[in-house]
């Protein structure tokens, strides 16, 4: 292995010089953004990061003297990451493409960051169904008819088409027995945390990810309207 500059004490690198170069580059990259020019900021930020990284890798890590194999290896792993980003970006970075659009991401961009952090009662927004978001104003009845009615039926008697398949069957809100030991608070709990929270069927899932506290309250109130009068 004659070509192998084996580790003697002699890489003939002036480490101090490289260190000071790095510091100067650091200062440039911090100062760059103060000019307020976008391309200059990007250049000083990322261009210099590449230069700095290269200096460290070549000199401190001695890649310059390492066998070619290792350069290939590191190069290949970086290329793989470029490949990954190239393959994923059309789906994740873009918010629309052929025959699809990412409504949630567009809404998030629209909403902006400040709206999100200041309204830091984050509960409200996340997971709001696309379909609901489009219909604007929240209506408990509309939500019930489009979401809950799948199993519980529009009349609330547990006869929704999807409910027919479920075991145990969905609750029948028109049944006086059902209300014998239930109150509004319990309905709120079940909608919010799922029936499992009160020892019921796991098929009734939790909706706190989809609806805000107020919306759940409104839904519960709507469910209460099914309660047969006369008790």
């Amino acid at each position, binding site marked *: 292995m004659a070509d192998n500059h084996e580790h003697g004490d002699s890489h003939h690198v002036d480490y101090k010089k490289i260190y000071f170069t790095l510091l100067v580059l650091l200062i440039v990259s911090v100062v760059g953004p103060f000019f307020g020019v976008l391309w200059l900021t990007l250049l000083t930020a990322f261009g210099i990061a590449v230069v700095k990284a290269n200096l460290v890798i070549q000199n401190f890590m001695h890649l310059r003297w390492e066998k070619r194999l290792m350069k290939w290896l590191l190069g290949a792993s970086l290329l793989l990451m470029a490949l990954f980003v190239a393959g994923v970006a059309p789906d994740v970075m873009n918010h629309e493409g052929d025959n699809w659009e990412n409504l949630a*991401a567009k809404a998030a961009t629209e909403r902006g960051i400040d709206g999100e952090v200041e309204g830091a009662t984050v509960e409200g927004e996340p997971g709001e169904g696309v379909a609901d978001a489009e219909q604007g104003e929240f209506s408990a009845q509309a939500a019930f008819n489009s979401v809950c009615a799948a199993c519980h039926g529009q009349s609330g008697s547990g006869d929704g088409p999807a409910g027919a398949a479920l075991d145990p069957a969905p609750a029948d809100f028109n049944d006086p027995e059902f209300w014998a030991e239930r109150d509004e608070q319990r309905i709120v709990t079940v909608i919010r945390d799922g029936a499992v929270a009160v020892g019921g069927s796991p*098929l009734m899932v939790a909706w706190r990810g989809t609806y805000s506290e107020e919306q759940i309250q409104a839904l519960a109130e709507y469910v209460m309207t099914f309660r047969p009068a006369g008790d």
Partner: protein
Amino acid sequence: MDRFLTQASTYASEIDGIILLVGVLVGFWTLAAYTVFFWLIWKFRKKPHGRSEYLTGEEKHIKRWVTIPHLLVLVCDIFIIVGAVRVWYNVKQTLPEADSTVRVIGQQWAWTFQHPGPDNELDTPDDIFSVDELHVEVDRVYHYRLESRDVLHSFSVPVFRLKQDAIPGRSITGWFEPTVTGEYDVQCAEICGIGHGVMAARIFIEDANQHQAWIAANSVSTSQ
């Protein structure tokens, strides 16, 4: 394929066609490989005092026996790629002019279908919502807008040979054109929780009269 399941959309036969094309090409190669494989095992079984030949596989005239079939495989690949890309382009990428648009919304564990209603326009007050029942008219081009309320679902209509995942936060558009009337399965083909197995719906493909009747019957009841 036809024997398994009705072809009920315009592109069902295309998709079956590409499956058949792959099947024929691949079947041929599989049979060829098996024939050679088992023949070699039988032909070169151990014989008393037999000794194997010393072949490195580097000699050109011997290597031909592998490289020529290999090139033929490549040719078959090209046929398959061209066929697959064409079918994909027709089904997923192009959108023929729609006669009507429906919205399909998946949630744990039901499908909600938003039909355009009498005015044939989506997102108007006369839209008809139905759960686990999709009503469409035969021989009309439909666009679907696929959405999900919670987790991933997959809108799968086997008789159409159609399948598309629903992703929360996204709206994905596609199309189909039913060609026969009848009542068929709609499945959810992406695991969506413990109720995945009950997330079944039906699609009703009706002729124009039946469909108008259905619209009329349901417009009354939902306008409340």
